[in-house]
Protein backbone atom coordinates (compact mmCIF):
# COMPACT_ATOMS: atom_id res chain seq x y z
CA UNK A 1 0.00 0.00 0.00
CA UNK A 2 1.32 3.42 -0.92
CA UNK A 3 1.80 5.79 2.03
CA UNK A 4 -0.79 8.28 0.81
CA UNK A 5 -3.34 5.52 0.44
CA UNK A 6 -2.39 4.12 3.79
CA UNK A 7 -3.06 7.49 5.39
CA UNK A 8 -6.43 7.92 3.80
CA UNK A 9 -7.28 4.32 4.61
CA UNK A 10 -6.49 4.94 8.26
CA UNK A 11 -8.61 8.08 8.26
CA UNK A 12 -11.47 6.24 6.60
CA UNK A 13 -11.14 3.30 8.94
CA UNK A 14 -11.27 5.56 11.97
CA UNK A 15 -14.17 7.57 10.56
CA UNK A 16 -16.05 4.39 9.73
CA UNK A 17 -15.67 2.94 13.17
CA UNK A 18 -16.58 5.98 15.26
CA UNK A 19 -19.88 5.41 16.98
CA UNK A 20 -19.59 1.63 17.29
CA UNK A 21 -19.09 0.10 20.65
CA UNK A 22 -16.68 -2.73 21.27
CA UNK A 23 -17.09 -6.21 22.66
CA UNK A 24 -14.15 -5.83 24.90
CA UNK A 25 -12.48 -6.81 28.03
CA UNK A 26 -10.57 -3.71 28.84
CA UNK A 27 -7.68 -4.80 30.95
CA UNK A 28 -5.75 -1.54 31.10
CA UNK A 29 -6.47 2.09 30.35
CA UNK A 30 -3.78 3.97 28.45
CA UNK A 31 -2.62 5.52 31.72
CA UNK A 32 -2.42 2.15 33.48
CA UNK A 33 -0.50 0.70 30.54
CA UNK A 34 1.99 3.59 30.68
CA UNK A 35 2.64 2.94 34.37
CA UNK A 36 2.94 -0.83 33.76
CA UNK A 37 5.41 -0.28 30.93
CA UNK A 38 7.57 2.37 32.60
CA UNK A 39 6.93 2.17 36.36
CA UNK A 40 9.96 4.39 37.04
CA UNK A 41 8.73 7.25 34.83
CA UNK A 42 7.58 10.52 36.41
CA UNK A 43 5.81 11.89 33.33
CA UNK A 44 4.41 10.77 29.99
CA UNK A 45 4.39 13.44 27.29
CA UNK A 46 2.34 13.10 24.10
CA UNK A 47 4.94 12.71 21.36
CA UNK A 48 3.06 11.38 18.30
CA UNK A 49 5.16 10.26 15.36
CA UNK A 50 4.46 11.26 11.78
CA UNK A 51 6.20 9.18 9.11
CA UNK A 52 7.40 10.56 5.79
CA UNK A 53 6.95 8.45 2.65
CA UNK A 54 10.65 7.54 2.83
CA UNK A 55 10.30 6.47 6.45
CA UNK A 56 7.21 4.38 5.56
CA UNK A 57 9.27 2.58 2.93
CA UNK A 58 12.07 2.00 5.43
CA UNK A 59 9.54 0.51 7.90
CA UNK A 60 8.22 -1.83 5.20
CA UNK A 61 11.75 -3.00 4.41
CA UNK A 62 12.51 -3.69 8.07
CA UNK A 63 9.20 -5.31 9.04
CA UNK A 64 8.35 -7.06 5.75
CA UNK A 65 4.84 -5.75 6.33
CA UNK A 66 2.80 -2.82 4.97
CA UNK A 67 3.69 0.22 7.10
CA UNK A 68 -0.07 0.82 7.38
CA UNK A 69 -0.14 4.11 9.33
CA UNK A 70 1.50 7.47 8.76
CA UNK A 71 0.55 8.60 12.22
CA UNK A 72 1.45 6.77 15.43
CA UNK A 73 0.14 7.52 18.92
CA UNK A 74 3.24 7.82 21.06
CA UNK A 75 4.03 8.96 24.59
CA UNK A 76 7.57 9.76 25.70
CA UNK A 77 8.34 8.33 29.14
CA UNK A 78 10.34 10.79 31.20
CA UNK A 79 12.07 10.57 34.52
CA UNK A 80 12.91 14.20 35.14
CA UNK A 81 15.04 15.21 32.16
CA UNK A 82 15.95 11.65 31.34
CA UNK A 83 14.07 10.02 28.46
CA UNK A 84 13.40 6.42 29.45
CA UNK A 85 11.72 5.40 26.22
CA UNK A 86 8.40 5.48 24.41
CA UNK A 87 4.94 3.97 24.72
CA UNK A 88 3.38 3.27 21.31
CA UNK A 89 -0.32 2.47 21.06
CA UNK A 90 -1.84 0.33 18.33
CA UNK A 91 -4.73 -1.94 17.38
CA UNK A 92 -4.69 -5.01 15.17
CA UNK A 93 -7.51 -7.29 14.07
CA UNK A 94 -7.32 -10.67 15.83
CA UNK A 95 -9.64 -13.09 14.06
CA UNK A 96 -12.70 -10.84 13.77
CA UNK A 97 -12.16 -8.12 16.35
CA UNK A 98 -9.62 -5.46 17.24
CA UNK A 99 -6.97 -6.11 19.85
CA UNK A 100 -5.67 -2.94 21.53
CA UNK A 101 -2.13 -3.10 22.81
CA UNK A 102 0.79 -0.91 23.83
CA UNK A 103 4.47 -1.46 23.18
CA UNK A 104 7.27 0.07 25.25
CA UNK A 105 10.47 0.70 23.30
CA UNK A 106 13.77 1.87 24.72
CA UNK A 107 15.60 4.86 23.22
CA UNK A 108 17.73 2.39 21.20
CA UNK A 109 14.50 0.96 19.65
CA UNK A 110 14.64 -2.38 21.42
CA UNK A 111 11.31 -3.72 22.76
CA UNK A 112 11.03 -3.27 26.52
CA UNK A 113 7.58 -4.76 27.10
CA UNK A 114 4.18 -5.42 25.52
CA UNK A 115 0.83 -4.95 27.29
CA UNK A 116 -2.67 -5.89 26.04
CA UNK A 117 -5.16 -3.07 26.70
CA UNK A 118 -8.34 -4.61 25.32
CA UNK A 119 -9.20 -7.98 23.81
CA UNK A 120 -12.47 -8.56 22.02
CA UNK A 121 -12.34 -12.09 20.56
CA UNK A 122 -14.22 -15.10 21.99
CA UNK A 123 -11.03 -17.15 22.17
CA UNK A 124 -7.35 -16.50 22.66
CA UNK A 125 -7.39 -14.51 25.88
CA UNK A 126 -4.10 -16.29 26.58
CA UNK A 127 -2.14 -13.72 24.59
CA UNK A 128 -2.35 -11.70 27.79
CA UNK A 129 -0.24 -14.22 29.68
CA UNK A 130 3.02 -12.70 30.89
CA UNK A 131 4.96 -15.74 29.71
CA UNK A 132 3.88 -15.25 26.11
CA UNK A 133 4.47 -11.48 26.13
CA UNK A 134 7.89 -11.93 27.68
CA UNK A 135 9.11 -13.41 24.39
CA UNK A 136 9.27 -9.92 22.86
CA UNK A 137 11.59 -8.40 25.47
CA UNK A 138 14.89 -7.07 24.13
CA UNK A 139 14.07 -7.79 20.49
CA UNK A 140 14.25 -5.54 17.44
CA UNK A 141 12.47 -5.68 14.07
CA UNK A 142 15.16 -7.93 12.65
CA UNK A 143 15.63 -10.28 15.58
CA UNK A 144 12.89 -12.89 15.71
CA UNK A 145 9.56 -11.15 16.17
CA UNK A 146 7.66 -13.69 14.11
CA UNK A 147 5.36 -16.60 14.97
CA UNK A 148 7.34 -19.79 14.59
CA UNK A 149 10.59 -17.86 14.44
CA UNK A 150 11.31 -16.42 17.85
CA UNK A 151 7.72 -16.16 19.08
CA UNK A 152 5.79 -19.34 19.90
CA UNK A 153 2.28 -19.94 18.64
CA UNK A 154 -0.74 -20.12 20.96
CA UNK A 155 -2.81 -23.17 20.06
CA UNK A 156 -6.37 -22.16 19.32
CA UNK A 157 -5.51 -18.47 18.94
CA UNK A 158 -3.14 -18.62 15.99
CA UNK A 159 -4.57 -15.61 14.17
CA UNK A 160 -4.67 -13.38 17.26
CA UNK A 161 -1.10 -14.12 18.26
CA UNK A 162 0.14 -13.88 14.66
CA UNK A 163 -1.44 -10.48 14.17
CA UNK A 164 -0.23 -9.08 17.49
CA UNK A 165 3.27 -10.39 16.71
CA UNK A 166 3.20 -8.75 13.26
CA UNK A 167 1.96 -5.53 14.90
CA UNK A 168 4.81 -5.52 17.41
CA UNK A 169 7.32 -6.15 14.61
CA UNK A 170 5.90 -3.20 12.67
CA UNK A 171 6.18 -0.99 15.76
CA UNK A 172 9.76 -2.18 16.34
CA UNK A 173 10.52 -1.14 12.75
CA UNK A 174 8.80 2.24 13.17
CA UNK A 175 10.81 2.84 16.35
CA UNK A 176 14.03 1.87 14.62
CA UNK A 177 13.32 4.28 11.76
CA UNK A 178 12.25 7.15 14.04
CA UNK A 179 14.87 6.76 16.77
CA UNK A 180 18.00 5.70 14.89
CA UNK A 181 18.25 8.68 12.58
Amino acid at each position, binding site marked *: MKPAHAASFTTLAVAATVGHTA*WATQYLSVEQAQRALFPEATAFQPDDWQLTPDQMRAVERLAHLPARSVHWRVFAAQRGDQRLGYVILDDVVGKFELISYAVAVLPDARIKQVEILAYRESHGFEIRSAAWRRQFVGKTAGSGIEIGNGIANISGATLSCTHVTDGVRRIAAVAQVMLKK
Partner: protein
Amino acid sequence: MKKTTLALAVLSALAVAPASALASEAELMQRINQLAAELDKVKAELAATRQKAEAVEQRQEAQAASQPAPSDPSAGAEAVAAGPATVISSYGEVNYNRPVHDASKAQADVARAVIGIEHRFDDKTHMVSEFEWEHAVASSGDAGETEVEQLYVERQFDNGMRGKAGLYLIPSGLLNTSHEPTAYYGVERNFVETAIIPSTWREAGLGLSKTLDNGLTWDLGLTTGFDLNKWDFSAESEGKASTLGSIHQEGQLARARDLAVHGALNWRGVPGLLLGGSLFTGGAGNAQSGFAANDARVTLWELHVRYNPGALDLSALYARGTISDTAALNLQNAGSATPVPSSFQGWYTQAAYRVWHSGDYTLTPFVRYEQFNTAKTFAAMPAGIANNAGPDQKVSTVGANFMIGEGVVLKADYQKFHNDSALDRVDLGFGYAF
Protein backbone atom coordinates in the same frame (compact mmCIF):
# COMPACT_ATOMS: atom_id res chain seq x y z
CA MET B 1 -14.42 97.44 10.42
CA LYS B 2 -12.01 95.37 12.19
CA LYS B 3 -14.61 95.01 14.90
CA THR B 4 -17.27 94.18 12.33
CA THR B 5 -15.05 91.64 10.66
CA LEU B 6 -14.21 90.10 13.98
CA ALA B 7 -17.88 90.08 14.98
CA LEU B 8 -18.78 88.42 11.72
CA ALA B 9 -16.06 85.95 12.12
CA VAL B 10 -17.25 85.16 15.65
CA LEU B 11 -20.84 84.99 14.46
CA SER B 12 -20.02 82.79 11.57
CA ALA B 13 -17.92 80.68 13.85
CA LEU B 14 -20.80 80.43 16.27
CA ALA B 15 -23.11 79.68 13.44
CA VAL B 16 -20.82 77.04 11.98
CA ALA B 17 -20.07 75.45 15.30
CA PRO B 18 -23.59 74.07 15.87
CA ALA B 19 -23.73 73.14 12.22
CA SER B 20 -20.55 71.00 12.51
CA ALA B 21 -21.83 69.63 15.80
CA LEU B 22 -24.98 68.64 14.02
CA ALA B 23 -23.01 67.00 11.24
CA SER B 24 -20.96 64.83 13.63
CA GLU B 25 -24.16 63.87 15.44
CA ALA B 26 -25.60 62.60 12.19
CA GLU B 27 -22.39 60.74 11.54
CA LEU B 28 -22.63 59.29 14.99
CA MET B 29 -26.22 58.24 14.40
CA GLN B 30 -25.14 56.63 11.19
CA ARG B 31 -22.41 54.78 13.00
CA ILE B 32 -24.78 53.71 15.73
CA ASN B 33 -27.15 52.42 13.10
CA GLN B 34 -24.29 50.62 11.45
CA LEU B 35 -23.26 49.12 14.78
CA ALA B 36 -26.82 48.11 15.52
CA ALA B 37 -27.02 46.41 12.14
CA GLU B 38 -23.74 44.68 12.77
CA LEU B 39 -24.92 43.68 16.23
CA ASP B 40 -28.05 42.18 14.71
CA LYS B 41 -25.89 40.29 12.29
CA VAL B 42 -23.65 39.02 15.11
CA LYS B 43 -26.75 38.11 17.11
CA ALA B 44 -28.07 36.10 14.19
CA GLU B 45 -24.73 34.39 13.73
CA LEU B 46 -24.54 33.67 17.45
CA ALA B 47 -28.01 32.18 17.39
CA ALA B 48 -27.04 30.00 14.43
CA THR B 49 -23.84 28.91 16.18
CA ARG B 50 -25.76 28.20 19.35
CA GLN B 51 -28.23 26.11 17.38
CA LYS B 52 -25.42 24.16 15.82
CA ALA B 53 -23.73 23.63 19.17
CA GLU B 54 -26.98 22.40 20.66
CA ALA B 55 -27.45 19.96 17.80
CA VAL B 56 -23.90 18.67 18.28
CA GLU B 57 -24.48 18.41 22.02
CA GLN B 58 -27.69 16.51 21.46
CA ARG B 59 -25.94 14.14 19.10
CA GLN B 60 -23.13 13.61 21.58
CA GLU B 61 -25.61 13.00 24.37
CA ALA B 62 -27.45 10.48 22.23
CA GLN B 63 -24.16 8.76 21.47
CA ALA B 64 -23.11 8.81 25.10
CA ALA B 65 -26.46 7.29 26.07
CA SER B 66 -25.95 4.43 23.63
CA GLN B 67 -22.39 3.81 24.84
CA PRO B 68 -21.25 3.00 28.34
CA ALA B 69 -19.18 5.83 29.78
CA PRO B 70 -15.49 5.02 29.66
CA SER B 71 -14.09 4.32 33.09
CA ASP B 72 -11.37 6.86 32.51
CA PRO B 73 -10.98 9.71 30.07
CA SER B 74 -8.16 8.07 28.10
CA ALA B 75 -10.30 4.97 27.57
CA GLY B 76 -12.29 6.89 24.98
CA ALA B 77 -9.51 6.19 22.51
CA GLU B 78 -10.23 2.47 22.69
CA ALA B 79 -13.93 2.97 22.08
CA VAL B 80 -13.08 4.78 18.86
CA ALA B 81 -10.84 1.91 17.82
CA ALA B 82 -13.59 -0.70 17.70
CA GLY B 83 -14.32 -2.57 14.51
CA PRO B 84 -17.69 -3.00 12.81
CA ALA B 85 -20.45 -4.54 14.93
CA THR B 86 -21.34 -7.32 12.49
CA VAL B 87 -18.74 -9.59 10.92
CA ILE B 88 -19.24 -12.33 8.34
CA SER B 89 -16.92 -15.34 8.41
CA SER B 90 -16.70 -18.45 6.33
CA TYR B 91 -14.76 -21.64 5.81
CA GLY B 92 -14.99 -24.49 3.40
CA GLU B 93 -13.23 -27.54 2.06
CA VAL B 94 -13.29 -29.54 -1.16
CA ASN B 95 -11.73 -32.99 -0.88
CA TYR B 96 -10.70 -35.79 -3.22
CA ASN B 97 -10.20 -39.34 -1.89
CA ARG B 98 -8.74 -42.09 -4.07
CA PRO B 99 -8.31 -45.61 -2.67
CA VAL B 100 -5.00 -46.78 -4.12
CA HIS B 101 -6.13 -50.39 -4.71
CA ASP B 102 -9.59 -49.60 -6.08
CA ALA B 103 -9.83 -46.40 -8.08
CA SER B 104 -13.51 -47.07 -8.82
CA LYS B 105 -14.22 -45.79 -5.29
CA ALA B 106 -12.47 -42.46 -5.86
CA GLN B 107 -14.65 -39.47 -5.09
CA ALA B 108 -14.61 -35.71 -4.87
CA ASP B 109 -16.76 -33.85 -2.38
CA VAL B 110 -17.56 -30.31 -1.32
CA ALA B 111 -17.25 -31.63 2.20
CA ARG B 112 -18.14 -28.43 3.99
CA ALA B 113 -19.30 -24.92 3.16
CA VAL B 114 -19.88 -22.75 6.19
CA ILE B 115 -21.09 -19.19 6.62
CA GLY B 116 -20.81 -17.49 9.99
CA ILE B 117 -22.22 -14.26 11.31
CA GLU B 118 -20.94 -12.58 14.47
CA HIS B 119 -22.70 -9.59 15.89
CA ARG B 120 -21.84 -7.38 18.83
CA PHE B 121 -24.82 -5.93 20.65
CA ASP B 122 -22.72 -3.89 23.06
CA ASP B 123 -19.28 -3.89 24.60
CA LYS B 124 -19.97 -7.07 26.57
CA THR B 125 -22.52 -9.04 24.59
CA HIS B 126 -22.10 -10.75 21.25
CA MET B 127 -23.69 -13.45 19.13
CA VAL B 128 -21.82 -16.17 17.24
CA SER B 129 -23.42 -18.29 14.54
CA GLU B 130 -22.27 -20.81 11.92
CA PHE B 131 -24.47 -22.32 9.22
CA GLU B 132 -23.15 -25.29 7.35
CA TRP B 133 -23.78 -27.36 4.26
CA GLU B 134 -22.13 -30.76 4.15
CA HIS B 135 -21.65 -32.64 0.84
CA ALA B 136 -22.85 -29.79 -1.35
CA VAL B 137 -26.52 -30.65 -1.89
CA ALA B 138 -29.10 -31.17 0.82
CA SER B 139 -32.55 -32.45 -0.11
CA SER B 140 -34.67 -35.52 0.62
CA GLY B 141 -32.98 -37.36 -2.23
CA ASP B 142 -29.42 -36.25 -1.56
CA ALA B 143 -26.69 -37.17 0.88
CA GLY B 144 -25.97 -33.62 2.01
CA GLU B 145 -26.98 -31.93 5.23
CA THR B 146 -27.79 -28.38 6.17
CA GLU B 147 -27.19 -27.58 9.79
CA VAL B 148 -26.80 -24.89 12.39
CA GLU B 149 -23.35 -25.60 13.72
CA GLN B 150 -23.16 -22.85 16.33
CA LEU B 151 -25.74 -20.35 17.56
CA TYR B 152 -25.07 -18.72 20.88
CA VAL B 153 -24.89 -15.43 22.69
CA GLU B 154 -21.92 -14.73 24.95
CA ARG B 155 -21.83 -12.14 27.69
CA GLN B 156 -18.74 -10.89 29.45
CA PHE B 157 -19.03 -10.14 33.17
CA ASP B 158 -17.02 -7.58 35.11
CA ASN B 159 -14.93 -10.24 36.83
CA GLY B 160 -13.67 -11.49 33.45
CA MET B 161 -15.99 -14.50 33.42
CA ARG B 162 -17.84 -15.25 30.20
CA GLY B 163 -21.29 -16.82 30.12
CA LYS B 164 -22.94 -18.22 27.02
CA ALA B 165 -26.31 -19.63 26.10
CA GLY B 166 -27.36 -21.44 22.95
CA LEU B 167 -25.86 -24.09 20.72
CA TYR B 168 -22.10 -24.13 21.20
CA LEU B 169 -19.04 -26.32 20.63
CA ILE B 170 -18.05 -28.62 23.50
CA PRO B 171 -14.44 -27.82 24.49
CA SER B 172 -13.20 -31.38 24.01
CA GLY B 173 -9.89 -32.28 22.39
CA LEU B 174 -7.74 -30.20 20.06
CA LEU B 175 -9.92 -30.17 16.96
CA ASN B 176 -13.52 -29.59 17.98
CA THR B 177 -13.32 -25.91 18.83
CA SER B 178 -10.67 -25.29 16.16
CA HIS B 179 -12.04 -27.25 13.21
CA GLU B 180 -11.45 -25.00 10.19
CA PRO B 181 -9.43 -26.76 7.45
CA THR B 182 -6.59 -24.26 7.90
CA ALA B 183 -6.26 -25.30 11.56
CA TYR B 184 -5.44 -29.02 11.24
CA TYR B 185 -3.09 -31.25 9.26
CA GLY B 186 -4.36 -33.68 6.66
CA VAL B 187 -7.25 -33.56 4.22
CA GLU B 188 -9.68 -35.33 6.56
CA ARG B 189 -10.06 -34.67 10.26
CA ASN B 190 -8.18 -37.27 12.32
CA PHE B 191 -10.00 -40.51 13.21
CA VAL B 192 -9.77 -40.25 16.99
CA GLU B 193 -11.42 -36.83 16.93
CA THR B 194 -14.25 -38.06 14.70
CA ALA B 195 -14.78 -41.69 15.82
CA ILE B 196 -14.23 -41.28 19.58
CA ILE B 197 -14.82 -37.53 20.10
CA PRO B 198 -17.64 -36.67 17.68
CA SER B 199 -16.95 -33.87 15.23
CA THR B 200 -18.18 -31.14 15.03
CA TRP B 201 -19.68 -31.69 18.49
CA ARG B 202 -22.07 -29.09 19.79
CA GLU B 203 -24.82 -29.12 22.39
CA ALA B 204 -27.50 -26.65 23.43
CA GLY B 205 -27.22 -25.22 26.92
CA LEU B 206 -25.43 -22.84 29.22
CA GLY B 207 -21.68 -22.42 29.66
CA LEU B 208 -19.28 -20.44 31.80
CA SER B 209 -15.57 -19.89 31.19
CA LYS B 210 -12.71 -17.77 32.35
CA THR B 211 -9.07 -17.28 31.43
CA LEU B 212 -6.75 -16.57 34.32
CA ASP B 213 -3.60 -14.44 34.15
CA ASN B 214 -1.42 -17.53 34.46
CA GLY B 215 -2.65 -18.91 31.13
CA LEU B 216 -5.21 -21.33 32.58
CA THR B 217 -8.66 -21.39 30.99
CA TRP B 218 -11.56 -23.26 32.56
CA ASP B 219 -14.93 -24.12 31.04
CA LEU B 220 -18.06 -25.46 32.74
CA GLY B 221 -21.40 -26.19 31.13
CA LEU B 222 -24.86 -27.68 31.46
CA THR B 223 -26.21 -28.90 28.12
CA THR B 224 -28.21 -31.44 26.21
CA GLY B 225 -26.51 -34.83 25.82
CA PHE B 226 -26.73 -37.93 23.65
CA ASP B 227 -29.82 -39.96 22.86
CA LEU B 228 -29.24 -43.70 22.96
CA ASN B 229 -32.73 -44.24 21.52
CA LYS B 230 -31.18 -43.32 18.17
CA TRP B 231 -28.75 -46.27 18.18
CA ASP B 232 -28.82 -48.24 14.93
CA PHE B 233 -28.17 -51.98 15.53
CA SER B 234 -27.95 -52.82 11.80
CA ALA B 235 -24.83 -53.73 9.87
CA GLU B 236 -24.79 -50.27 8.27
CA SER B 237 -24.85 -48.54 11.65
CA GLU B 238 -23.03 -45.23 11.85
CA GLY B 239 -22.13 -46.33 15.38
CA LYS B 240 -19.31 -48.42 13.95
CA ALA B 241 -17.59 -45.38 12.48
CA SER B 242 -18.37 -42.96 15.31
CA THR B 243 -19.93 -44.24 18.52
CA LEU B 244 -21.21 -40.86 19.70
CA GLY B 245 -21.51 -39.37 16.23
CA SER B 246 -24.40 -41.79 15.65
CA ILE B 247 -26.38 -40.72 18.73
CA HIS B 248 -25.63 -37.01 18.89
CA GLN B 249 -28.58 -34.65 18.75
CA GLU B 250 -27.10 -31.41 17.38
CA GLY B 251 -29.89 -29.30 18.83
CA GLN B 252 -32.44 -30.92 16.51
CA LEU B 253 -35.60 -31.39 18.63
CA ALA B 254 -33.16 -32.86 21.14
CA ARG B 255 -34.50 -35.15 23.84
CA ALA B 256 -33.65 -33.26 27.00
CA ARG B 257 -35.08 -35.18 29.94
CA ASP B 258 -31.49 -36.09 30.80
CA LEU B 259 -29.02 -33.24 30.74
CA ALA B 260 -25.23 -33.42 30.67
CA VAL B 261 -22.45 -31.49 32.35
CA HIS B 262 -18.97 -30.82 31.05
CA GLY B 263 -15.78 -29.23 32.27
CA ALA B 264 -12.47 -28.46 30.60
CA LEU B 265 -9.11 -27.15 31.72
CA ASN B 266 -6.50 -25.82 29.29
CA TRP B 267 -3.19 -24.36 30.31
CA ARG B 268 -1.06 -22.23 28.00
CA GLY B 269 1.32 -20.86 30.60
CA VAL B 270 4.49 -21.70 28.66
CA PRO B 271 4.80 -20.15 25.19
CA GLY B 272 4.00 -22.73 22.53
CA LEU B 273 2.66 -25.32 24.99
CA LEU B 274 -0.95 -26.36 25.48
CA LEU B 275 -1.86 -28.92 28.13
CA GLY B 276 -5.48 -29.77 28.67
CA GLY B 277 -8.25 -32.19 29.36
CA SER B 278 -12.01 -32.37 29.51
CA LEU B 279 -14.86 -34.46 30.86
CA PHE B 280 -18.44 -34.74 29.61
CA THR B 281 -21.09 -36.88 31.28
CA GLY B 282 -24.84 -37.18 31.03
CA GLY B 283 -27.78 -39.56 30.88
CA ALA B 284 -28.66 -40.90 27.42
CA GLY B 285 -31.93 -42.78 27.99
CA ASN B 286 -34.23 -39.80 28.44
CA ALA B 287 -36.90 -41.90 30.22
CA GLN B 288 -38.57 -43.15 27.07
CA SER B 289 -41.35 -45.65 27.73
CA GLY B 290 -40.35 -49.19 26.87
CA PHE B 291 -36.69 -48.29 26.31
CA ALA B 292 -34.35 -50.85 27.85
CA ALA B 293 -31.51 -48.44 28.68
CA ASN B 294 -33.12 -45.52 30.44
CA ASP B 295 -30.34 -45.53 33.05
CA ALA B 296 -27.61 -45.38 30.41
CA ARG B 297 -24.99 -42.70 30.95
CA VAL B 298 -22.51 -41.48 28.35
CA THR B 299 -19.17 -40.28 29.70
CA LEU B 300 -16.29 -39.05 27.59
CA TRP B 301 -12.97 -37.77 28.84
CA GLU B 302 -9.77 -36.86 27.08
CA LEU B 303 -6.30 -35.46 27.68
CA HIS B 304 -4.34 -33.51 25.08
CA VAL B 305 -1.03 -31.80 24.61
CA ARG B 306 0.34 -29.66 21.83
CA TYR B 307 3.79 -28.13 21.63
CA ASN B 308 4.34 -25.60 18.86
CA PRO B 309 7.33 -23.47 19.85
CA GLY B 310 8.46 -22.63 16.32
CA ALA B 311 8.75 -24.64 13.14
CA LEU B 312 8.03 -27.81 15.12
CA ASP B 313 4.42 -28.73 15.92
CA LEU B 314 3.87 -31.81 18.11
CA SER B 315 0.58 -33.04 19.45
CA ALA B 316 -0.93 -36.05 21.18
CA LEU B 317 -4.36 -36.91 22.47
CA TYR B 318 -6.01 -39.74 24.36
CA ALA B 319 -9.79 -40.06 24.56
CA ARG B 320 -11.98 -42.65 26.23
CA GLY B 321 -15.74 -42.95 26.40
CA THR B 322 -18.13 -45.25 28.23
CA ILE B 323 -21.83 -46.00 27.98
CA SER B 324 -23.25 -47.56 31.14
CA ASP B 325 -26.25 -49.87 31.62
CA THR B 326 -26.38 -51.19 28.06
CA ALA B 327 -26.73 -54.92 28.91
CA ALA B 328 -30.53 -55.05 28.79
CA LEU B 329 -30.66 -53.08 25.55
CA ASN B 330 -28.06 -55.29 23.88
CA LEU B 331 -29.87 -58.39 25.16
CA GLN B 332 -33.06 -57.13 23.56
CA ASN B 333 -31.11 -56.82 20.31
CA ALA B 334 -29.08 -60.00 20.76
CA GLY B 335 -27.35 -61.12 17.61
CA SER B 336 -27.53 -57.69 15.99
CA ALA B 337 -24.64 -56.56 13.79
CA THR B 338 -23.84 -53.45 15.81
CA PRO B 339 -24.54 -53.68 19.54
CA VAL B 340 -23.92 -50.69 21.84
CA PRO B 341 -20.35 -50.77 23.22
CA SER B 342 -19.68 -50.21 26.92
CA SER B 343 -16.43 -48.44 26.10
CA PHE B 344 -14.63 -46.92 23.13
CA GLN B 345 -11.26 -45.22 23.03
CA GLY B 346 -8.42 -43.97 20.93
CA TRP B 347 -5.21 -41.99 20.85
CA TYR B 348 -2.97 -40.36 18.30
CA THR B 349 0.33 -38.65 18.08
CA GLN B 350 1.36 -36.24 15.37
CA ALA B 351 4.50 -34.38 14.36
CA ALA B 352 4.68 -31.57 11.84
CA TYR B 353 7.61 -29.42 10.81
CA ARG B 354 7.53 -26.21 8.79
CA VAL B 355 10.28 -26.91 6.26
CA TRP B 356 9.79 -23.98 3.92
CA HIS B 357 8.46 -20.47 4.33
CA SER B 358 8.76 -17.79 1.68
CA GLY B 359 6.58 -14.72 1.50
CA ASP B 360 2.98 -15.95 1.72
CA TYR B 361 3.85 -19.60 1.19
CA THR B 362 4.42 -22.14 3.94
CA LEU B 363 5.01 -25.85 3.49
CA THR B 364 4.52 -28.11 6.51
CA PRO B 365 4.86 -31.89 6.13
CA PHE B 366 3.44 -34.03 8.93
CA VAL B 367 3.11 -37.63 10.09
CA ARG B 368 0.39 -39.01 12.34
CA TYR B 369 -0.21 -42.39 13.88
CA GLU B 370 -3.55 -43.19 15.44
CA GLN B 371 -5.18 -46.13 17.08
CA PHE B 372 -8.87 -46.24 17.92
CA ASN B 373 -11.62 -48.68 18.70
CA THR B 374 -15.32 -47.78 18.63
CA ALA B 375 -16.19 -51.11 20.26
CA LYS B 376 -13.45 -51.64 22.81
CA THR B 377 -15.67 -53.52 25.28
CA PHE B 378 -19.27 -54.64 25.66
CA ALA B 379 -21.41 -55.16 28.75
CA ALA B 380 -21.45 -58.76 29.94
CA MET B 381 -24.01 -60.94 28.16
CA PRO B 382 -25.22 -64.51 28.84
CA ALA B 383 -22.85 -67.19 27.54
CA GLY B 384 -23.27 -67.92 23.87
CA ILE B 385 -24.55 -64.52 22.83
CA ALA B 386 -21.68 -62.39 24.13
CA ASN B 387 -20.60 -59.52 21.90
CA ASN B 388 -17.02 -59.56 20.71
CA ALA B 389 -14.89 -56.48 21.10
CA GLY B 390 -13.83 -54.87 17.86
CA PRO B 391 -10.20 -54.68 16.75
CA ASP B 392 -8.04 -51.62 17.45
CA GLN B 393 -7.95 -49.73 14.16
CA LYS B 394 -4.48 -48.47 13.30
CA VAL B 395 -3.94 -45.75 10.74
CA SER B 396 -0.77 -43.97 9.68
CA THR B 397 -0.97 -40.73 7.73
CA VAL B 398 1.84 -38.88 6.01
CA GLY B 399 1.28 -35.69 4.08
CA ALA B 400 1.73 -31.94 3.92
CA ASN B 401 -0.20 -28.71 4.30
CA PHE B 402 0.72 -25.94 1.89
CA MET B 403 -0.56 -22.62 3.19
CA ILE B 404 -1.11 -19.55 1.04
CA GLY B 405 -1.19 -16.66 3.47
CA GLU B 406 -3.10 -17.55 6.60
CA GLY B 407 -6.46 -18.24 5.01
CA VAL B 408 -5.96 -20.76 2.20
CA VAL B 409 -4.57 -24.27 2.37
CA LEU B 410 -3.81 -27.01 -0.13
CA LYS B 411 -3.39 -30.46 1.38
CA ALA B 412 -2.16 -33.84 0.23
CA ASP B 413 -1.67 -37.02 2.21
CA TYR B 414 -1.45 -40.79 2.06
CA GLN B 415 -3.29 -42.89 4.64
CA LYS B 416 -2.29 -46.45 5.45
CA PHE B 417 -5.01 -48.54 7.15
CA HIS B 418 -3.06 -51.27 8.94
CA ASN B 419 -6.14 -53.47 9.53
CA ASP B 420 -7.48 -53.34 5.97
CA SER B 421 -5.16 -52.29 3.18
CA ALA B 422 -8.14 -52.08 0.78
CA LEU B 423 -8.89 -48.76 2.46
CA ASP B 424 -5.43 -47.28 1.83
CA ARG B 425 -5.93 -44.01 0.02
CA VAL B 426 -4.49 -40.81 -1.33
CA ASP B 427 -6.28 -37.60 -0.34
CA LEU B 428 -6.11 -34.17 -1.91
CA GLY B 429 -7.86 -31.18 -0.45
CA PHE B 430 -8.42 -27.47 -0.70
CA GLY B 431 -9.67 -25.37 2.17
CA TYR B 432 -10.04 -21.79 3.29
CA ALA B 433 -11.14 -19.90 6.37
CA PHE B 434 -11.69 -16.26 7.20
